């Protein structure tokens, strides 16, 4: 059996988990085995109706008196025990923070190898996985072999489209109660504090105005803020600008920052380093404003203006204001 770890919000599976199910189903088909899902939390049992369309044949609802909130080690340990119990050779997780954390713990318990951020997996006759996975946040691909009786893989974000199965399944639902010790529960979410959110979060904005080192100082972001406001968007920044202390880290777009997918990304004074581009490659359109016609971003953008952002952006703001 291929066992997929499915995250959910109040009984509705999350998007990255559904993507991971696409990979898990491919593997189950290739290996000619059943597809099972491990779900945690009180509302997990409600997932039976939700997961049938994705070809999930067995739902394993992991329950335990001590497993109320999220507890990484206990969840990973439980997932590993479940994989043992149902003799699952492969565990598939979403390429999310939790997916990776739970899988790392499960991998430690099972003493099994784990390949993260996979974008394609082929199974050969001997059951070895020939796979491709992201490196450098997705600016490189690695071809690798993953071998062993037990394996873990994570599906890279947004690489496997959510697809329902050719044949809908009617999953059986079983409860699984792991045997947990106090040590497994040393780490658990103590409390959740809500943030003081202002404006549109980067990940959700339709328009992002990005500013890099070319902006030149913190005060000049005012022009970019104004442009973002006029277009109903929000401001992002390159790592260089954040290292200068001009913007808070939350604004960072890139490999170690936010991954954005706006309708348009206006990249102002940004060179287009690979680590920046992996953060904004999800943008529908990129328009670059840069003084250097040779800048990498000009190769990668859809539209470009060669010029000084300090001259272009204020005029653009005036022109938009006049129009509206």
């Amino acid at each position, binding site marked *: 059996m291929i066992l997929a770890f499915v995250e959910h919000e109040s009984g509705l599976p999350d998007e990255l988990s559904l993507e991971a199910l696409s990979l898990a189903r491919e593997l189950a088909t290739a290996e000619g085995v059943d597809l099972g899902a491990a779900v945690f939390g009180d509302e997990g049992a409600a997932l039976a109706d939700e997961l049938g369309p994705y070809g999930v044949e067995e739902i394993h609802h992991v329950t335990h008196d001590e497993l109320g909130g999220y507890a990484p080690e206990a969840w990973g340990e439980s997932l590993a025990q479940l994989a043992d119990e149902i003799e699952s050779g492969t565990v598939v997780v979403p390429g999310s923070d939790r997916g990776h954390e739970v899988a790392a713990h499960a991998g430690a318990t099972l003493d099994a190898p784990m390949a993260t951020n996979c974008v394609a997996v082929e199974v050969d006759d001997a059951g070895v996985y020939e796979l491709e996975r992201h490196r450098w946040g997705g600016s490189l691909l690695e071809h690798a072999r993953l071998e062993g009786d037990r394996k873990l893989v994570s599906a890279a974000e947004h690489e496997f489209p959510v697809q329902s199965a050719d044949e809908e399944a009617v999953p059986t639902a079983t409860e699984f109660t792991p045997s947990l010790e106090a040590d497994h529960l040393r780490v658990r979410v103590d409390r959740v*504090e809500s943030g003081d959110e202002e404006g549109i979060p980067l990940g959700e904005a339709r328009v992002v105005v990005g500013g890099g080192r070319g902006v030149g100082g913190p005060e000049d972001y005012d022009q970019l803020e104004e442009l973002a406001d006029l277009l109903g968007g929000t401001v992002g920044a390159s790592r260089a600008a954040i290292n200068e202390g001009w913007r808070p880290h939350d604004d960072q777009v890139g490999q170690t920052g936010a991954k954005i997918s706006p309708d348009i990304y206006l990249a102002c004074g940004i060179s287009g380093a690979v680590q920046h581009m992996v953060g904004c490659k999800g943008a529908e359109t990129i328009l670059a404003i840069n003084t250097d016609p040779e800048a990498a971003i000009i190769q990668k953008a859809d539209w470009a203006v060669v010029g000084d952002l300090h001259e272009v952006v204020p005029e653009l703001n005036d022109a938009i204001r006049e129009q509206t």
Partner: protein
Amino acid sequence: MNVLACVKRVPNTGAKIVLTDDNQRIDASNLGFTMSPHEECAIEEAIQQVEAHGGSAHVLTLGPEEATEQLRTGLAMQADEATLLETDGSEWEPRATADAIANAVRGLADDGTEFDLLLLGNESADAANYQVGVRVARELGLPCVMGIKSLDVEDDTAIARREISGGEEVYEVDLPAVITVKEGINEPRYASMRAKMQARKKAIERLEPSGAAGPGTLEKIRLEAPETDDSAADVLGDGPDSVPEIIEVLESEVEVL
């Protein structure tokens, strides 16, 4: 309080990544090397915790002789000690890396240095295996929290915060513990020229790593630079004269105006 920060040497890639002819690694001859950003923050955090609570900050890397450059960066940032687990430069599987780090931590404890806190990057910039920290923790029997963007130590407890959509999860963990950090937890300091000179004179302990992976393997075969659409942008014009063209794009092509 003794804090260990574990870092990895990676190529300092720029706008374009070129691979070596055998497709085994990035051709770094024109790029130079750096440490992954999350790990630079792990060092900074180690130093700040020691500044706040006393004790010593230690940096460790598993890598070739040349990785002493990254250890010296750590020393220049004011880490007290550095250890190189010296390899021939070949890539180690995450499980073998974790095993080698755990063994080194045990060895240092035998020699009298016990760590209260082990900090690692959440994932390395190149391989992003997301598991070395957890595997080190599990091998040493320590609690572990990943992806932390804020850390406070009060007495024997680490209060660690992780960003989730709309807020933060707060974890309270007894020390000793392993915490993997993300960029944004702090702003790594720039080392002064003088600190860099002093760091050159500090001793670096070299140990032969002993680390093995359990059953099964994850083996790199080759790297590939994916095709990118570098079909150059449509240049709308030069400077402010192109404002009408930008408006046109915003209005008709993207329809955000």
